[in-house]
């Protein structure tokens, strides 16, 4: 789960990680009053969306007068911002963050992740701040410093000082940077984060560290113990269909093809999508119905997949282990009775209670295309589309 920059910065404040003075605003008028309260003679107006790449897309504006603050906020709020991470449709800006402007001397990168290699929390730092860290790691790997944290004792001061020295800091700056790193680690650990990134962490000309930007994502599996984080969820930032699907305990991701997929298990779902593309089709979605799928769940899956107007065929591929083919078949019958299914439906069932499932489908009088194997199902789905086009 992701949160907004202004929310991350509020969290940082509670951990004494220095951030610029600023507040979120829902409207141009609010933005103006925030800027007035902040005072000074320079402000930055930042669009609050979860996607990165805002700066290059015009989502971050520097204002030198109160009129400009109002004007920039007016322009940003209600507009769809298209960045390299949003896709063509862009993301609607509902709020901006207005902050005081600071004179920057040096930019650094600071982050924490759960590193899959070491299977531990790992601190990442670089003197090449303000750039994408993946890019820095690719072009100049020597500029990226990693420090793995032993979970038994947590991040130690000496590790922080080592990292601080490694990114070129000296004197008392090492001590302050180490304090920030440790606070960031505590925040990461306490809140069950998966990733936190300060890019850039700046040294101002006044000699102070500030987290100029802040990004944080949290472990969905741990939200049961963090209602304070769950409260920060912004459903406007998520695909409404994915939200609806998750409400039915379905894992759905919209894609841009025409074969609607209903599969059980993430691995089989991916492999099914891959097979469809090998036979010349394109998957319209990823959908994992999970284990123990009831007829209602299958019917909901059908409905969600069919809401996508690009879907020209629906393909079910269920290998029932913990699932039951008879329940799946009942779900298919229920869905096709309740919904007006105007596209061909290809069904491949295998595993537990297969015969019972086949019987239900055969006796239902439904018009569907049976497939015995994965290859069969993929091929028939693609054929069904091509025949539809020809007709």
């Amino acid at each position, binding site marked *: 789960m992701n949160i907004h920059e202004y929310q991350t910065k509020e969290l940082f404040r509670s951990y004494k990680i220095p951030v610029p003075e600023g507040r979120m605003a829902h409207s141009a008028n609010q933005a103006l009053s925030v800027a007035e309260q902040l005072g000074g003679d320079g402000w930055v107006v930042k669009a609050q969306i979860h996607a990165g790449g805002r700066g290059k897309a015009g989502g971050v504006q520097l204002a030198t007068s109160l009129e400009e603050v109002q004007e920039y906020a007016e322009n940003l709020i209600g507009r769809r911002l298209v960045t390299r991470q949003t896709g063509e449709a862009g993301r609607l800006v509902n709020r901006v963050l207005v902050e005081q402007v600071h004179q920057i001397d040096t930019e650094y990168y600071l982050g924490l992740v759960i590193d899959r290699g070491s299977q531990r929390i790992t601190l990442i730092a670089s003197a090449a701040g303000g750039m994408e860290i993946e890019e820095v790691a690719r072009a100049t790997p020597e500029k990226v410093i990693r420090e793995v944290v032993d979970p038994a004792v947590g991040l130690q001061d000496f590790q922080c000082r080592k990292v601080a020295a490694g990114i070129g800091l000296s004197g008392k700056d090492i001590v302050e940077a180490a304090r920030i790193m440790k606070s960031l680690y505590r925040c990461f650990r306490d809140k069950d984060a998966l990733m936190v990134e300060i890019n850039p962490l700046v040294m101002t000309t006044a000699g102070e560290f500030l987290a100029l930007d802040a990004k944080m994502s949290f472990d969905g599996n741990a939200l049961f113990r963090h209602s304070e984080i769950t409260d920060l969820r912004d459903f406007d930032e998520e695909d409404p269909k994915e939200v609806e699907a998750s409400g039915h305990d379905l894992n759905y991701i919209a894609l841009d093809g025409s074969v609607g997929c209903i599969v059980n298990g993430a691995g*089989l779902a991916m492999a099914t999508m891959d097979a469809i593309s090998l036979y010349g089709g394109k998957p319209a979605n990823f959908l994992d119905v999970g284990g123990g799928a009831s007829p209602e769940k299958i019917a909901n899956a059908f409905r969600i997949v069919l809401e996508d107007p690009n879907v020209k065929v629906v393909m079910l591929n269920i290998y029932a282990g913990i699932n039951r083919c008879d329940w799946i078949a009942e779900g298919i019958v229920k869905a096709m009775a309740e919904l007006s299914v105007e596209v061909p439906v290809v069904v491949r069932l295998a595993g537990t209670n297969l015969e019972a499932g086949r019987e239900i489908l055969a006796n239902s009088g439904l018009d569907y295309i049976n497939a015995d194997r994965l290859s069969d199902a993929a091929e028939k789905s693609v054929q069904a589309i091509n025949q539809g086009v020809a007709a």
Partner: protein
Amino acid sequence: MSILVNKDSRVIFQGFTGQHATFHAEEAIRMGTQVVGGVTPGKGGQVHIERPVFDTVRDAVVQAGADVSVVFVPPPFSADAVMEAIEAGIKVIVVITDGVPVQDMVRVKRYLIGHDAIIVGPNTAGVITPEECKVGIMPAHIYPKGRVGIVSRSGTLNYEAVEQMSELGLGVSTSVSIGGDPVNGCDFLTLLEKFADDDETEAVLMIGEIGGAQEVEAAAWARDHLNKPLIGFIAGATAPPGRRMGHAGAIISGEGDTAQAKMQRLAELGAHVVQNAAEIGKTVHHSLK
């Protein structure tokens, strides 16, 4: 032979009296698995599906000789249950639970150091040695006994592979699903090492996914140490970058994470790479010729 579990394994279920654990314990017993009891704190002394219930894993080890545990304990308590099993001396711990917090697993893996145990999962379909022992939620009847070792992330894709193999007359020595989480108990490499030492395994099928480097690391080891064919498949060629495809670990976060990149590396390292999931069985069959 086989790896991890066999007919002599003495299995307990943690979270024994819950609905799912009960169902799968009964299924395991039906297949011939030696289920010697289970653990549900507070219910020690009771009898459940004709087996003793213990308050602690240690009791199950001491009184019933348990050496394998299947964990069905809900996510908030899973890490504690796994550490309890480690401390009590259980050798193979299979964590079926889906939704265990990642940082809990980081701590569990730290706790594991210095102990002689293997954790499979979380979020796994489990382990099966056909006709001997089933510690998981997979349908036992689709797994014929044979000589191919399987290690996969996904459960259902594992079933798919088994069906394709059995149509060609190929069976399974032991099949392990390691689960879809980014921090998991044991990785592909650990299991390839075990399969390398197993005389009854003539080939190993590795079914991976986008994200991480575990499959490539395992294949690199196999090139020099596995004296039998390695067949590899990576699911997720059509997955868009940056999106988590169901499994928390299945996310493309860098160039090396894509299915194409990983399959290419596997091929370079000498594995028989399957491009189309519908041809897993065929490729395994071919590799054994």
